[in-house]
């Protein structure tokens, strides 16, 4: 029975197999890359700084891959269960027929479960070669964005394929389990009705899970308002996933409502009638849109908020970039009240932590004039006082806030060959941007260490002077890069966001394609099942073109509904992050990714419309009379 059904309804089962296979592939690839990043391959002949950078890149790659694996798992569960649930719903009449000819409930469940076991196994096996491809793509992306060195390869590990495969089969079985319980309640009488009218779409479990997911989402939005930024980031991911689940479970309520917005006619009637079908197409779109826009909006908002915070933390008008030597001329320029020179010096600081052993820091070490620094920066220290930053002392910066380096501790430093013992006298609080690692008095360092160092000078203009005039005067002194504080802050935000976009590409690139594939899948399954309906419409007097046209119009409406619902979820995520940002820096900064939104709207509508159009064209190729009159 199982085997012969496969042959008959290949669109249905090809879709199901593919959804398992791609999910397994993504999971396997992420696990393989993740496992390989645990053991960094450092090319020989590199300086300590370069080695350190590569090591950091590996840690970053591991984090991204961990998140990707998590996301792949979520998508696999979501997409496979929604696809399998749809395949069961589409075969209501067949299943009722089975009951009519004497099949028991247990047999029906056994049939569906063995079917999904078969699909799961086939999908998982196919997933292995797919996974190798996915792994190449992920590795390539990670190398492209610079997290992993050139020539990185993740070795093959059998356990990853087995784990992913077992999960794939498990997901297929659990995905079909609730659907099979529901299918077992199909009454044999339904086989006798002409169209096999689908059951109530909003059944109890749909209500229950939909409402609890919605409640969870709202709770997370509220919780995010009062949490720190890491919490908000987690909440944003949680809101995107949980909200997407809620929206797709509850979408059968919304789709018919939105149908009222359309002019009356076949399209509107079909939308209200084919609720199950519309919901199946809309679900993966909701997930895709909410994750893509939610995550990108979250990252974007954090970057923008970081820029905003940087702008507010500085009590100055201009930022000049130069070398340390050149910057020494800035205080003398007419109209400059304070010029806080901040040299990014190339020295090594070693912190001996009791339980971790020595940690070496190479970057983010900034030499300052403590008095100038204090006059141009608002950020109050979380410990100690900048005035104490004299002699051989050091302040921990925002980036090292959480590292447990406490005032009174003595850190060893190597400043261009000269050993120093730096006493920690205070620290700055954590900021949205990672920020600097250490601040130390320039006077403690030999001149050659800071004279050539890349230097940012924060310039406070004499009250009453026009900052633009002062900037002109500085430019005439031969300084190249002079920016106003807002420009400088925006550039920093942009730089952070560029990095975010790269990470998002790795995270959502393949996962997004997976969700898009699920959209195509649902559209094909939905279209293929409407062969008879299309034929009836044509016999009633519609041309083939009109039938295809109305199917496409309906699909576009469903796609738009999916996108809108996804946007609602993404909006909830942004509300959460907005609240957290407000708590952190006092103003609400929210970045709506308009460009991405436009791409997503156009892209998903195009994909759904094209797929539906092609499916409708293929299913209406036969002469309609042949289909309408054929008994079965």
């Amino acid at each position, binding site marked *: 029975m199982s085997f012969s059904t496969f042959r008959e309804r290949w669109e249905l089962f090809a879709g199901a197999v593919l959804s398992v296979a791609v999910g397994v592939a993504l999971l396997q690839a992420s696990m393989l890359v993740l496992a390989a990043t645990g053991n960094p391959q450092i090319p020989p002949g590199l300086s300590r700084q370069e080695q350190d950078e590569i090591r950091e890149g590996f840690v970053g790659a591991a984090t991204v891959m961990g998140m990707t694996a998590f996301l792949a798992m979520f998508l696999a569960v979501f997409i496979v269960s929604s696809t399998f649930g749809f395949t069961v719903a589409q075969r209501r009449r067949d299943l009722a027929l089975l009951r009519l*000819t004497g099949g028991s409930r247990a047999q029906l469940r056994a049939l569906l479960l063995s079917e999904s076991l078969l699909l799961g196994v086939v999908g998982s096996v196919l997933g292995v070669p797919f996974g190798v491809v996915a792994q190449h793509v992920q590795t390539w992306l990670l190398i492209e964005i610079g997290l992993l060195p050139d020539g990185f390869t993740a070795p093959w590990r059998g356990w990853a394929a087995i784990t992913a495969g077992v999960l794939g089969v498990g997901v297929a079985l659990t995905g079909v389990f609730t659907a099979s319980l529901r299918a077992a309640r199909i009454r*044999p009488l339904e086989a006798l009705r002409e169209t096999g009218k689908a059951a109530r779409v909003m059944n109890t479990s749909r209500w229950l899970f939909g409402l609890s997911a919605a409640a969870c989402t709202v709770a997370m939005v509220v919780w995010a308002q009062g949490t720190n930024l890491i919490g908000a980031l987690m909440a944003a991911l949680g809101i995107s996933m949980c909200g997407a689940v809620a929206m797709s479970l509850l979408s059968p309520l919304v789709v018919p409502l939105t149908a009222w917005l359309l002019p009356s006619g076949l399209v509107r009637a079909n939308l209200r009638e084919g609720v199950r079908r519309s919901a199946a197409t809309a679900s993966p779109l909701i997930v895709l849109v909410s994750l893509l826009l939610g995550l990108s909006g979250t990252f974007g908002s954090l970057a923008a908020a970081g820029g905003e915070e940087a702008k507010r933390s500085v009590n100055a008008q201009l930022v000049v970039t130069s070398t340390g030597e050149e910057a020494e001329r800035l205080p003398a320029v007419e109209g400059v009240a304070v010029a806080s020179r901040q040299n990014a010096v190339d020295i090594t600081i070693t912190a001996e932590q009791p339980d971790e052993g020595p940690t070496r820091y190479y970057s983010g070490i900034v030499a300052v004039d403590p008095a100038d620094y204090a006059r141009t920066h608002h950020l109050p220290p979380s410990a100690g006082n900048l005035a104490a930053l004299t002699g051989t002392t050091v302040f921990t910066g925002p980036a090292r806030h959480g590292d447990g380096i406490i005032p009174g501790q003595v850190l060893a430093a190597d400043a261009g060959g000269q050993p120093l013992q730096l006493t920690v006298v205070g620290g700055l609080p954590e900021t949205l941007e990672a920020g600097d690692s250490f601040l130390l008095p320039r006077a403690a360092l030999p001149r050659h260490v800071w004279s050539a160092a890349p230097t940012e000078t924060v310039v406070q203009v004499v009250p009453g002077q026009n900052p633009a005039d002062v900037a002109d005067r500085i430019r005439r002194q031969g300084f190249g890069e002079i920016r106003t504080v807002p420009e400088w802050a925006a550039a920093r935000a942009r730089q952070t966001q560029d990095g975010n976009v790269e990470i998002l590409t790795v995270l959502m690139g393949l996962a997004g394609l997976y969700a898009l594939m699920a959209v195509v899948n649902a559209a094909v399954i939905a279209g293929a099942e409407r062969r008879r309906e299309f034929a009836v419409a044509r016999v009633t007097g519609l041309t083939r073109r009109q039938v295809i046209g109305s199917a496409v119009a309906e699909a576009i409406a469903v796609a738009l509904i999916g996108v809108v619902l996804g946007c609602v979820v993404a909006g909830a995520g942004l509300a959460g992050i907005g609240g957290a940002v407000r708590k952190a820096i006092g103003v609400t900064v929210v970045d709506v990714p308009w460009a991405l939104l436009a791409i997503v709207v156009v892209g998903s509508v195009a994909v759904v419309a094209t797929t539906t159009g092609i499916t409708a064209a293929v299913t209406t190729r036969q002469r309609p009379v042949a289909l309408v009159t054929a*008994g079965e």
Partner: protein
Amino acid sequence: MQLHQVTRVHGSKNTGVAALDNVSLTCPPGTWTAVMGPSGSGKSTLLHCAAGLDQVTSGRVLLAGHDITAAPDNVLTAMRRRTIGFVFQTFNLISSLTAEQNVAFPAKLAGLRVSKRDVRAVLAVVGLADRATHRPKELSGGQQQRVAIARAMITRPAVLFADEPTGALDSASAKTVLALLRDMVRTAGQTILMVTHDPAVAASADTVIFLADGRVVDRLTGPTTHDVAERLAGLES
């Protein structure tokens, strides 16, 4: 097969429409009863209630000696496997299975061993010996209906329910199908309850009962096509 004062109300009990109103009916073993009546008279509901596919609102339904009025699903399933069979206007074959697989399917579900020879033999009885490996799509309407009858024959059910069994067939195929049904009653002593709106088809039954607005309004034994048509015309006028 017996119905005792069966009422079936669609919708809520107080405001709903009674599709069957206090209907009592007995079909003794080895008889063929046809149910006739205008559209909406409750013919199909009667059949569904008698077969345990639909729950009655009040009254009792007995099938092959068992009271199935409130039988749980597993009892009804067991009955569908062994005691009752169905033949419908839309043939209700499983489209992915071949003719012989379709015939053997209910027996397989019941866990019974059916030899290929038995299946072929039944298909030969309905005149489809050479079509055993064809799928429903490759068969004509009459052939599909004969496969459905073969499916109902193989388990030798005590009661066969037929809903417009010839409704989608040409007259030659219809004759073949009716002859097959008559054979089942005569040789195997099976009981048939058949719903139809065609007087000629009803005339092949032993008894015809007429329904109107959910009530039994008339009954004919040993009917001719002419008698049936006349009574029906009387009902509809």
